C-alpha cells in the first residue's frame, strides 16, 4: 500500500482472510491467508491469540517511526474465552457481540478486520512484525517481544488527572471533548443493542417451547378431536416459523450492526488512547518548559536541550495525530455506512421471506375445514 522500498513485501490488505478456526481445549488457532500486492500467490499461516498480541506489541514498539504516539492503532479484540471454560455470561461481558454467533464466526471477522486495518495503514503496514506475522511459518508469539512504550492503557491515578489537562490547540481540544462524549454514547448503544439481540434469542427459545407443547395436542378419538389436533399442529408450525424468523433476525443483527457497533466502540477507544498519549506528551512538554525557565545557569543548557527535543516530539506527534484523525473520521463513516446498509438489506430480505411464509400459512389456515 503506497510507494516504499518494501513494496515487494507489502501485503494486499483486502486479501487478508481468516479462513478457518479450530479449537483445541482452551486454545483457538486461526488460519490466515493473504496475498502480496505484487503477486497473486497466497500464503497461509496458523496463529493463536498470543501471536496477535505479539503483533500488536510489535506495532507499538516500532523504533524508527517518528510520532508513533500519534497513531491511532487499530484495536485488537479482547482475548477469546472458549465456552468450555467459562459461562456465556462472562464471555458476553468480556467480548460483547464478539461472543455471539456460531463457531466464532463473528470473532474471526473482527480479527480479520483488525489485520486488514493494520495492513491498510500507511505506517503500520510497513512494520516487520506484520510481515512476519503474515508470512513466517513459525509462530512468532513465542518470542519475547520488547515491551513497547505503549501497553494497553491501564491508567493509574496520576494518569487520570492528565486526561482533563487543557489543550493548547483548539482542534485537539474539541476532538478530545467529542471523543469522550461519543465514546460513551457508542458504548451505551452497543450495550443496549446487545440487550435487544439477547432478548430476541430468548423470544425464539420461548417460541420453541410453545411450538413443542402444541405438538402434544394429538387426539384421534373422533373427527372433532382430529380436527382440533390438526389446528394445534398448524399453530405449532406457525410458531416454529416465528421462532426461525427471530433467530434469523438476531443473526442478522449480530453479524452486521452488532459487529459494526462493537468495532466503532473499540476504535473510539483507540482514538481516545492516542489523544491521551498526546496529552501526556503535552504535560511533559509544559513541565520541560517550566524546568527550562527555572533552571539554574549550570543546568540551563541541558534543560533547554530537553525542552527543544520534547517540543519537536510533540509537534511531530501532533501533526501525525491530525492526519490520523482525519483518516479516522473518513474511514469510520464509511465503515458504519457499510454495516448499516448491510444490516438493513439483510433484515429487509428476512422480513420479506417471513411475510411470504406467513402468507402461505394464512392461506392454508383459511382453507382449513372445520
Amino acid at each position, binding site marked *: 500500500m503506497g510507494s516504499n522500498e518494501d513494496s515487494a513485501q507489502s501485503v494486499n490488505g483486502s486479501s487478508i482472510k481468516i479462513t478457518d478456526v479450530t479449537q483445541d481445549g482452551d486454545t483457538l488457532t486461526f488460519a490466515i491467508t493473504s496475498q502480496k500486492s505484487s503477486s497473486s500467490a497466497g500464503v497461509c499461516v496458523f496463529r493463536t491469540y498470543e501471536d496477535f498480541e505479539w503483533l500488536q506489541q510489535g506495532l507499538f514498539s516500532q523504533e524508527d517511526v517518528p510520532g508513533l504516539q500519534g497513531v491511532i492503532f487499530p484495536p485488537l479484540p479482547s482475548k477469546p474465552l472458549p465456552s468450555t471454560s467459562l459461562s456465556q455470561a462472562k464471555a458476553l461481558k468480556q467480548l460483547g457481540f464478539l461472543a455471539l454467533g456460531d463457531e466464532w464466526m463473528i470473532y474471526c471477522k473482527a480479527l480479520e478486520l483488525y489485520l486488514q486495518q493494520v495492513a491498510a495503514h500507511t505506517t503500520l503496514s510497513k512494520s516487520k512484525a506484520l510481515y512476519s506475522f503474515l508470512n513466517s511459518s513459525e509462530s512468532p508469539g513465542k518470542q519475547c517481544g520488547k515491551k513497547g512504550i505503549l501497553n494497553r492503557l491501564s491508567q493509574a491515578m496520576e494518569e487520570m488527572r492528565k486526561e482533563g489537562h487543557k489543550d493548547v490547540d483548539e482542534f485537539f481540544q474539541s476532538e478530545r471533548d467529542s471523543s469522550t462524549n461519543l465514546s460513551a454514547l457508542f458504548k451505551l448503544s452497543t450495550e443496549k443493542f446487545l440487550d435487544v439481540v439477547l432478548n430476541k434469542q*430468548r423470544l425464539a427459545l420461548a417460541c420453541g417451547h410453545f411450538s413443542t407443547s402444541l405438538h402434544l395436542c394429538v387426539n384421534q378419538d373422533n373427527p372433532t378431536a382430529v380436527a382440533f389436533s390438526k389446528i394445534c399442529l398448524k399453530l405449532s408450525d406457525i410458531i416454529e416459523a416465528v421462532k426461525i424468523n427471530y433467530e434469523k433476525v438476531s443473526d442478522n443483527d449480530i453479524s452486521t450492526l452488532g459487529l459494526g457497533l462493537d468495532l466503532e466502540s473499540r476504535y473510539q477507544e483507540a482514538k481516545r488512547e492516542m489523544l491521551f498519549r498526546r496529552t501526556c506528551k503535552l504535560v511533559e512538554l509544559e513541565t520541560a518548559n517550566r524546568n527550562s525557565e527555572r533552571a539554574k545557569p549550570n543546568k540551563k543548557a541541558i534543560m533547554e536541550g530537553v525542552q527543544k527535543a520534547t517540543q519537536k516530539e510533540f509537534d511531530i506527534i501532533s501533526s501525525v495525530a491530525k492526519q490520523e484523525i482525519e483518516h479516522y473520521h473518513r474511514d469510520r463513516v464509511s465503515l458504519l*455506512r457499510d454495516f448499516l446498509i448491510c444490516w*438493513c438489506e439483510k433484515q429487509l430480505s428476512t*422480513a420479506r421471506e*417471513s411475510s411470504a411464509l406467513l*402468507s402461505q400459512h394464512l392461506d392454508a389456515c383459511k382453507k382449513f375445514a372445520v
Partner: protein
Amino acid sequence: MSLGSVRNPPPFLDSEDQEPEYDTGDLDSDDGEEIFTGTSNKPFVSTPPETDPSSDIFSEEGSYTVQKHTAPKTNGVQSDEELDLFAEATVELTLTAPNSRGRKEIIGPTEPLSTTVNTHGKLHVANTSNKPSEEVEEEESGDTFELNIAVTNPEKMGDGMNAYMTYKVSTQTTLPAFRSKTFSVRRRFSDFLGLYEKLSVKYNLMGCIIPPPPQKSVVGMTKVKVGKEDPSSAEFVEKRRAALERYLQRVVSHPALLQDSDVQEFLEREELPRAVNTQALSGSGFLKMINKASDAVNKMTIKMNESDNWFESKLQEVENEEQLLRRLHASVDSLVNHRKELCSNTAMFAKSVAMLGSSEENSALSRALSQLAEVEDKLEQLHQEQAFSDFFTLTELLADYLRLLGAVRGCFEQRMKAWQRWQEAQSTLQKKREAEAKLLWSNKPDKLQQAKEDITEWEAKVGQCERDFERISSTLRKEVHRFEKEKCRDFKHHIVKYLESLLRSQHRLVKCWEAFLPEAKAIV
C-alpha cells in the same frame, strides 16, 4: 363457545364498514373468505379504550378502542346448532328446576319465537311463519335472527375503596323477544357474576355447559379503585372489558341461554338489583366449587356403574386436555412477557441511538442515526402490538378454555350426582318395600296404607330420578359434542386472527426497512 361460528352478516351494519383498515393495503380482511361468516371479526388490538360517543360501537370504529382496525365480536343466533334441548322440556323441568316458571315464561309470552324440533333433533329458531317441523340445513335461511353484543366504555363510579367500574353493554338484535332493536345498559362486574349464579342454578342440573365468568382480581381492582392512572391499570380494565364481552358472547351463543329470561333481563333492564353472594362464584371461588363437587364424587360410596363407556373416556379426555391447555397457557404467557421485555429494550436502544444521532458530527451519519432511532421506535410499537395480540388472541383464549373445561368437568360431576340420587332413591324404595313386606307379616292394616302410599311416592321419585339421569346424560352428550365443535371453530378463528396480526407486523416491518435503506445509503 365460539365468537365466530357460522352466522349471517348482520343486516343492519353497512357492509362497507366491515372492511378493517389495515396499514398495509394489500392485506386482505376477513370479508367472507373465512368459512365462518362475513362478519368482520377484528383482531384484539388492545389499547385503553377511549370513548367515542358518536361512533356506532358495532361498526368497525371499534367497540373498545380508538384504533381504526378493531370491531366488536359480532354474534348471531346459533340457529344451526344441533341441540334438542327442548325435546322433552316441559315435563321434566317443572320437577327439577325451582324456577321452572322462568322456563315457561320463555315458551309462553315469547310466542313468535317458537322453538321447533324436527325429527333430526336440530333446533331451529324461526318465526311463526315457518312450519313447525321444517328441517334446516347448516346454512342460514332468511329467517334467522341476529344478536350482537358489545361491552364498551368502562367508567369509574364512586371514590376510594367503594369505587367500581361500570361497563356499557350494548345489544343489537332482531330477536322479537326484546323490546327494541338496539339498546344498551350499564352493568358492573358483580352483575355479570350475578347472572352466572342465576344461570348455573337453573341449568346446572340439566347438563348444560354454562360459560364461566371472568376472574375476580383483588389486586387489579384495587389499583383501579385507588385511582392510579398507569398503563397497568388501564391494561387491567381493558383485559376485563374484553373478558366480559367474550363471556356474554359465549352466553348468547348457547341457544338455551339466549332465550333465558335472566339473560334477556340482564341485557335489557335498566336497573338490576344488586347481585349478592357473588363471592363464591368467580376465579378461585369457581374452581373451588368445581373441586368440591369432584371431591364429593370421589367420596361416593356407590361406585358409578358406567353403562356407557363414552362418559368415562370423555371425562378423561377433558382432564387431559385441561393439563395440556395449562401448559400451553404458561408457554404463551412467557412468550408475552419476553415480547414486553423486547419492547422496553428496543425503546432504550432507540433512545441511546437518538442521543448518538444528535451528538454525531458527520451530518449524514447523524441523520441516518436519527432515522435509525425512529425505526427502532416503530419496531418497539410493533413489538408492543404483537404482545397485545399474543395476549388477547392466544393467552386469553387458552385461559377461557381452561375455565370452560372446568365447567365441562362440573357437568360430568353433576351427572354423577344425578346418578347417585337415582341410586339412593332406588335404595330408599327398596327399604320402603321391605317395610311394607314386614307390615304384611305383622298385619297392621292402618300402617299398611301409609306404607303403600310411601311406595307409590318413591316409585314415582325413582322414575323421576331415572328420567333426570337419562336426560342429563343425553343433554350432556350433545352439549359436549356442541362444545367440541365450537372449540374447534373458536381456535381456528383465533389462529387465523393471530396469523393476520403477525402478517401485518411483518408488512409494516418491511416498510420500515424499505424506508431506512435510502437513508443508510445516503451516508457519505
